[in-house]
């Protein structure tokens, strides 16, 4: 019975949500969740892994990790055209980790953890060091079960320059119980996935409640993959798309290890089947409240029937306008100074809500915090909480966290001036004229919702609506990322050391060398070798005994 219970406590669910967007793109979101009731932190090491991948289990127990969130993203999520994503992620790589209370040296554990993860995911995460790691003081609260939150155990870092390609997708697919051989992961073919407007793959590990009473916890591993396909560039002039056209693969069977394997198609904009038809049709409809909106989905359970295609897709009516979105850009001219502007839009007609803005700027952009201004509707808007940690050259980046109240239907602008630093010659990358990246700002907010949110935690809830824990019914939590910035630093001429060496050596050789020669060498006059005719004449003269020619 003991063995049976531990086996039952291992659960794997997979789901795919397809939502046609108003701009004509298609948003596909894969979610794979493994639940395991075990205790990684006890003395006897866990040795038998069934559905949970061993590499991640060993990482959790070795580094005493409480929560781990890592994402690799290519492209930028356009909130105004596409709405809010189910799971937001910034361009590049992002890693934030909560460690257990028992860890004594968090920085050493963080450094080793980034190296191990760089080996698991084939990414250059080993470039995460103290110059781009910050410790937020109010953002990034734990998403899982926790006793108390002490921000000393939190670390956050982004690598905006990180490229995502097949070599990151391959180890990610290997973490799934069925691999890429059965179930929904069969659709993940890299040639189609990377030929898209947006691609993001994430791994989230956290302890969760098992049921409503929440007396026991289990470890949850969620792997999500979000991709937005642009029908026009992928050659879909016709108004018909199918799984094969999107992914160039068809579904064969559900993963035998999965307890549930479902596909949800968002049909909210198609109530009477007037815009598009699903084939094969399904009578199963379900409603879910996600991101403050009640949406209707057609459900396909893969254990019973397979989904194929949708025909006649027309862009539907008006989209629910996202209530919060943000932009960021660099203003100014020249290579000495500049200004960072972060613009936040609150589109709610009558409600205002607070947002927490987290900015992490590298040390080589020296921020002048006395020039920080926050204005809404032209008037000054003082933040109710500011936490600023200044940077240390080559050691620590700037950290700026502010709690700003956004008035209804307004635009709030945060500006700060900066000065660019000159790096040492060896600190430049091999392609310095590309520019240097500044990571995205993170804006966390509790946005008021027009629809009552579900605060119950049940197993029947679809995965995409149960990621962020919901504490109250009237608002939902959302995280918005801005664009990363690309700034040019003053770049030296890298051929100058070579030029200087050549010039100095030439001057020394010519100047000193000739002087040395003049001073130390003695000169003697030497008879040149006589010509052949003269030699013969001298020889004959010698025989004759006559004086020689000179």
């Amino acid at each position, binding site marked *: 019975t*003991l*063995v049976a*219970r*531990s086996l039952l406590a291992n659960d794997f669910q997979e789901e795919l949500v397809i939502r046609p967007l108003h701009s004509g793109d298609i948003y596909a979101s894969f979610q794979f969740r493994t639940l395991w009731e075990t205790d990684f932190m006890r003395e*006897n090491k866990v*040795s*038998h892994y069934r559905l949970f991948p061993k590499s991640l289990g060993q990482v959790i127990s070795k580094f005493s990790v409480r929560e781990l969130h890592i994402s690799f993203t290519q492209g930028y999520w356009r909130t105004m055209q596409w709405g809010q994503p189910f799971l937001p992620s910034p361009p590049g790589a992002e890693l934030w980790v909560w460690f257990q209370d028992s860890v004594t040296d968090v920085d050493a554990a963080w*450094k*080793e953890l980034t*190296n*191990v993860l*760089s*080996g*698991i995911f*084939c*990414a*250059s995460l*080993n*470039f995460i060091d103290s110059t781009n790691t910050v410790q937020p*003081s*109010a953002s990034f*609260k*734990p*998403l*899982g*079960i*926790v006793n108390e*939150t002490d921000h000393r155990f939190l670390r956050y870092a982004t690598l905006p*320059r990180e*490229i*995502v*390609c*097949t*070599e990151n997708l*391959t*180890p990610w697919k290997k973490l799934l119980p069925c691999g890429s051989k059965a179930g929904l992961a069969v659709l993940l073919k*890299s*040639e189609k996935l*990377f*030929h898209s407007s947006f691609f993001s793959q994430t791994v989230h590990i956290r302890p969760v*409640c098992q049921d409503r*009473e*929440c*007396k*026991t916890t289990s470890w949850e591993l969620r792997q999500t993959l979000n991709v937005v396909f642009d029908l026009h560039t992928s050659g879909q002039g016709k108004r018909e798309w199918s799984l094969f056209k999107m992914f160039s693969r068809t579904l064969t069977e559900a993963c035998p290890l999965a307890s549930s394997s479902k596909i949800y198609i968002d049909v909210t904009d198609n109530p009477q089947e007037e815009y598009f038809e699903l084939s094969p049709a399904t009578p199963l409809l379900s409603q879910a409240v996600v991101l403050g909106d009640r949406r209707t989905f057609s459900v396909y359970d893969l254990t019973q029937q397979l989904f194929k295609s949708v025909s006649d897709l027309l862009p539907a009516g008006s989209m629910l306008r996202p209530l919060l979105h943000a932009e960021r850009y660099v203003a100014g001219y020249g290579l000495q100074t500049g200004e960072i502007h972060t613009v936040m839009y609150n589109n709610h007609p009558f409600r205002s809500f*607070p947002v*927490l803005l987290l900015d992490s700027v590298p040390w080589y952009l020296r921020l002048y915090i006395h020039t920080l201004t926050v204005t809404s509707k032209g008037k000054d808007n003082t933040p*109710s*909480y500011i936490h600023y940690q200044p940077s240390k050259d080559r050691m620590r980046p700037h950290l700026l966290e502010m*709690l700003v109240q956004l008035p209804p239907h307004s635009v709030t602008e945060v500006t700060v001036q900066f000065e660019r630093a000159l790096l040492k010659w060896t600190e430049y*990358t*091999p*392609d310095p004229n590309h520019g240097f990246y500044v990571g995205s700002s993170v804006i*966390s907010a*509790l946005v008021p919702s027009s629809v009552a949110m579900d605060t119950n935690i049940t197993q029947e809830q679809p995965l995409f609506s149960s990621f*962020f*824990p919901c*504490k109250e019914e009237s608002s939902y*939590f959302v995280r918005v990322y801005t664009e990363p910035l690309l700034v040019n630093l003053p770049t030296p001429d*890298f051929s100058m050391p070579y030029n200087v060496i050549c010039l100095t050596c030439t001057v020394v050789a010519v100047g000193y060398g000739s002087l040395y020669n003049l001073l130390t060498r003695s000169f003697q006059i030497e008879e040149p070798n006589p010509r052949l005719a003269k030699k013969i004449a001298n020889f004959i003269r010698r025989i004759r005994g006559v004086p020689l020619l000179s």
Partner: protein
Amino acid sequence: MSALLKRSCSHNMLAAIIMLIFICFCVHFQNTAGQFFSSGHTNNWAVLVCTSRFWFNYRHVANTLSVYRSVKRLGIPDSHIVLMLADDMACNHRNPKPATVFSHRNMELNVYGDDVEVDYRGYEVTVENFLRVLTGRLPPSTPRSKRLLSDDRSNILIYLTGHGGNGFLKFQDSEEISNVELADAFEQMWQKRRYNELLFIIDTCQGASMYERFYSPNIMALASSQVGEDSLSHQPDLAIGVHLMDRYTFYLLEFLEDIHPASKSNMNDLFKVCPKSQCVSTPGHRTDLFLRDPGSVLITDFFGSVRKVEITMEAIHLTDPILHPMSEEVQEKTYSYVDQLPVSEIIHQKPKQKDWHPPDGFILGLWTLILLVFFKTYGIKHLKHIF
């Protein structure tokens, strides 16, 4: 005279017989010596490095990936391959077909594949990291996939490609590795017993200069061009817009596509790859440091991974599984999730307790100065009021 001749004749015959016996003995000895020196490696490793950055150096990445593909196909697993690519061509925004790297025109062969694992990429491909991988002197937190964990029974294949010159190879347009450094790295590997035999292939301009300075035993080297010659690229693809492969590696790939794990081709066939008519440059090779005869070395000794399998008929008894007793007591504690944005808590957050540091030298000096000036002006009698 005839007697002398007759005696010399018999002497000649004797000498001939002795010579014949000696030759037979030599041949026999050669066979046993051949068996004695036949390859005694037990595992195979490969280190494949592309050193060029930027989109117009697409062909160097394609070179490295085609050798990677051949080596994987012939049996070396990903855990035994260290692949270093200095730039990303497959998911580069200029690539009209993302997640692909082609080696043949008209996009016939995608050498990038579906399950590639790149160990060092982008800015990580530096001379220092390359030498550290070869010599094994890596920081302790380096993961296994980034290490070359070879031993004295390993055959290692090292493939370098990029832009080079007489005596150096350029890494990422910002630094170089010289042939002396490379030779010293191999000597370190030999002294630390990190290889059994090493095959070094280089496809750059003036590639033969890179193996001139080797002095460690058991190294065989091939290069795509001699000193003073340039290695040329093969063919451009008009849709992608760049040259896809270098000539030497293109014909090397075609040669390797015919090899399968059981093939008996040897190194002499490899030396004949890409003659001057196809390559325009003259490929060179160096075998004087190698103990075995190149004709007896199989291609799969370096490019493949032939493992010796021993079949046993014994039965193995497994122990009973270890059962961990689950804690049966009912937890009275109820867990809960945390508020994601506790506004009031954040506003009233106490500032972090900063560690107390002793005052700075400057501050101490300033205060000492102020105190001195004070006591100088107002006299020492005020001191008793303070102490």
